[in-house]
């Protein structure tokens, strides 16, 4: 079946403006008659909940942490892009649109990306009005800096903590609405099922994480802003609690999952330091402006870095890519680091790391200049590793960081399931096969502040207003199924812990579906995961009880879903017989080892439909047509 993204007609520049006029409005006095559920309180969810409440809707906001301010958007470092062109260096809405489409390796929907660029300026205006302390120049105006993949300085930032400040801005707005009684906040609640009534998304079942009780919540529409699925790899830069459960449960109820194999691996993260490692920490991309990447030329060389003379060092990125050097795109840098370590040239205790050396930059510019640029990052590195990057090279290794795939949505950010809206990293739409730096923050806020509040009105005015109450059969069935699943997990009482299974799953995926994939490895991984999943349901040990605060039980449910979702990811990777962006199949590469796209056969979104456990999912394609940009081979020359 061919999917229709419902992109409005007309010229690219006019689509969104026309659409907003054509969308039916909900009368201001009528908005209070509608209840909307928003799951997740990150940049997308927090901004959406606040804005919908400001408009007059009754909002129920859910998060699994103790407070909406804990969402993992808080950890984003780099900055947020916008097409303001304050630096007067040639930026424009069109250029931001073009850079994003190209950065996504021509696998994103044109109209969505143009809209993103269009509202980017409104986002900055609103953030400043909220009192977000962006960095400023001496004259008092906003500062800008450059970021990866762009030839203009379009990134706004708040030190190295931009995500934190943007999230706290949305959080403050959300708290204002809570105080006014327009948002009811439900923290420590995890969504475990989506409820459909007459085929429309009309509610959720959540588990209260303090007392274990299952709760039913009904609404006229459901919004999922539940983040990405990077933790399927166990080790990632995600928070410990980040998971795919809400999105996956929607998938099981009929929502299509698009492009799950488009996962982004960030090249500069602090390496794994042991088998007990729980997560990976990001070191901002900006470091590669001054650091030089190298490994010892000789395999198995365990000498400390200062004892390895220049002639015995391989600055492999500078050697292989003379014109881009250390600033090659993320996927290229990542794949090269892995290749060096595979050849036994890795450094550090685990031999899974490469050096990022600031010695030359410090000699050239002086320690003070480097400290001003990277101070907080160097400090963070030292806290974690105990080493001082001013006097010894940093050790870094690639890590799973972001997921471009997600639930399929149309131009209105609505899934194929009517009434189910998906925003932020949880949806697939704007980044194609590779996300550019500083654009995740832009997308989350665009969706929540400036897109969903309009498009949801279009649905609410056209959808049948059902008489909803949570004692209906559909809610009853959903709660029953959820309870059975929870009880089942607790009843197995096997011999392996949840974390042990999770770690194992992560290793399988990292080895066979990581930076570099091949058909044989993907098939092998699928078999291994099926085996692991079977063993999980026979041998997992979950201590404690259901009617209690039970973190092992929480993790068990999330890992159970990861064990199923992982197979969908592999199916998608196997179906996409080309290389593009974050999906690199070794069989399809150029002579220079770059991703080789197959635009004739694969210029589409791969959206998967659940057909039943044990059955293959059905593929639906949304053809991508590019009327405004020319498809080119990404080149680093």
């Amino acid at each position, binding site marked *: 079946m061919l999917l229709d993204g419902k992109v409005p007609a007309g010229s690219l520049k006019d689509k969104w403006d026309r659409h907003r006029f054509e969308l039916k409005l909900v009368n201001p006095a009528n908005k209070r008659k509608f209840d909307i559920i928003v799951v997740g309180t990150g940049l997308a969810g927090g901004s959406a909940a606040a804005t919908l409440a400001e408009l007059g809707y009754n909002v129920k906001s859910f998060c699994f942490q*103790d407070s909406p301010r804990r969402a993992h958007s808080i950890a984003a470092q780099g900055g947020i892009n916008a097409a303001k062109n304050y630096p007067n260096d040639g930026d424009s809405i069109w250029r931001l649109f073009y850079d994003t489409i190209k950065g996504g390796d021509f696998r994103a929907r044109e109209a969505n990306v143009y809209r993103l660029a269009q509202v980017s300026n409104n986002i900055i205006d609103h953030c400043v009005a909220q009192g977000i*302390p962006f960095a400023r120049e001496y004259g008092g*105006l906003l500062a800008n800096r450059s970021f990866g993949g762009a030839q203009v300085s379009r990134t706004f930032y708040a030190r190295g903590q931009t995500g934190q400040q943007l999230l706290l801005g949305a959080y*403050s707005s959300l*708290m*204002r609405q809570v105080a006014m009684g327009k948002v009811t906040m439900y923290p420590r609640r995890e969504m475990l099922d989506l409820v459909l009534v007459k085929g429309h998304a009309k509610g959720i079942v959540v588990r209260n994480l303090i007392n274990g009780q299952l709760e039913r919540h009904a609404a006229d529409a459901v919004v999922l802003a539940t983040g990405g699925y990077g933790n399927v790899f166990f080790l990632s830069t995600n928070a410990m609690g980040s998971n795919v459960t809400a999105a996956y449960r929607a998938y099981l109820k009929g929502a299509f999952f698009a492009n799950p194999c488009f996962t982004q691996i960030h090249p500069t993260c602090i390496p794994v330091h042991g088998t007990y490692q729980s997560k990976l920490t990001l070191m901002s991309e900006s470091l590669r402006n001054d650091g030089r990447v190298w490994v010892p030329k000789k395999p198995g060389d365990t000498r400390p870095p200062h004892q390895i003379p220049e002639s015995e060092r391989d600055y492999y990125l500078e050697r292989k890519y003379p014109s881009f050097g250390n600033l090659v795109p993320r996927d290229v840098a990542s794949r090269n680091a892995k290749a060096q370590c595979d050849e036994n040239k890795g450094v550090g205790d685990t031999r899974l790391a490469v050096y990022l050396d600031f010695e030359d930059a410090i000699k050239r510019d002086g320690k003070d200049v480097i400290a001003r640029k990277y101070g907080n990052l160097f400090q*963070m590195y030292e806290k974690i590793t105990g080493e001082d990057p001013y006097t010894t090279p940093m050790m870094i290794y690639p890590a799973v960081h972001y997921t471009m795939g997600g639930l399929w949505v149309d131009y209105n950010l609505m899934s194929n399931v009517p009434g189910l809206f998906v925003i932020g990293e949880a949806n697939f739409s704007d980044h194609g096969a590779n996300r550019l730096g500083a654009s995740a923050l832009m997308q989350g806020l665009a969706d929540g502040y400036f897109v969903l509040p309009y498009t949801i009105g279009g649905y609410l005015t056209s959808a049948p207003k059902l008489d909803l109450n949570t004692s209906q059969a559909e809610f009853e069935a959903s709660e029953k199924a959820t309870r059975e699943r929870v009880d089942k997990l607790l009843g197995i009482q096997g011999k392996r*812990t949840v974390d042990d299974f999770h770690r194992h799953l992560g290793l399988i995926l990292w080895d066979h579906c990581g930076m570099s994939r091949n058909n044989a490895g993907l098939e092998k991984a699928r078999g291994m995961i099926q085996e692991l999943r079977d063993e999980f349901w026979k041998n997992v040990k979950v*201590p404690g009880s259901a009617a209690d*605060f039970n973190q092992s039980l929480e993790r068990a449910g999330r890992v159970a879903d990861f064990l199923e979702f992982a197979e969908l990811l592999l199916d998608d990777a196997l179906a996409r017989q080309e290389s593009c962006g974050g999906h690199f199949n070794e069989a399809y590469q150029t002579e220079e080892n770059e991703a080789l796209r197959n635009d004739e056969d694969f210029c589409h979104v791969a959206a998967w439909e659940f057909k039943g456990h044990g059955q293959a999912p059905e593929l639906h394609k949304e053809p991508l047509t590019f009327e405004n940009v020319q498809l080119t081979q990404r080149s680093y020359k």
Partner: protein
Amino acid sequence: MSKSIHLTLKVWRQKGPQDKGYFETHQANDISTEMSFLEMLDVVNEQLSLEGKEPIAFDNDCREGICGMCGAVINGRPHGALKGTTLCQLHMRHFKDGDVIAIEPFRAMAFKVIKDLVVDRSPLEKIIQAGGYISVTTGGAQDANAIPVPQEKAELAMDAAQCIGCGACVAACPNASAMLFASAKISQMALLPQGRPEAARRAIAMVREMDAQGFGNCSNETECEAECPKEISITNIARLNREFFKAHFGSSIK
């Protein structure tokens, strides 16, 4: 280079808010000094799980020092003894083989214990709900550069905005006051022009809510500043006091 150390943990266990609670002793053996404190607790919990015992409950999420979810009192110090470090950033290389480590939840009348080391910090959220925001509706903002902000003020605002809402300041204070927390948000907004229209109402409302939630008063002990993992300065408290007095005596807000 990593070493392997053995530690004795005295961990606070408490089944629920009404439970009395007690210290339980655990051995943490073969702990790599490269591990973080929470990874060390993970290892202890894995062992407890396999033995069919109840693992130690503790809040955590980002494990990068930015979400504010983790936190416990380690040998009497919230987040441990290392300056400017959250519990999740504390690594085992700062402990010696044979160390005895007492681990307790953040204690304050306003912070009810939920289970073991997990406490309810929603009273902090109530303070923000009372006024920790600028009343602006999405969509009407003017151009971001319309009002210049002096760079020094912007930097001070960012310093104050560092607060991660972990509650260590409350746990450190002998009076369990939340002044550093409240002053951080009030300062951020007081320093920026966008926050001025509501400055009076914000200061009075947030301080009032802080009192209502059961936090103590500030008597300038300054332990909050010493323990804050983001090194937020008590000059913010001084600023809050100024804002509060200005609002009380110089405005029509009651």
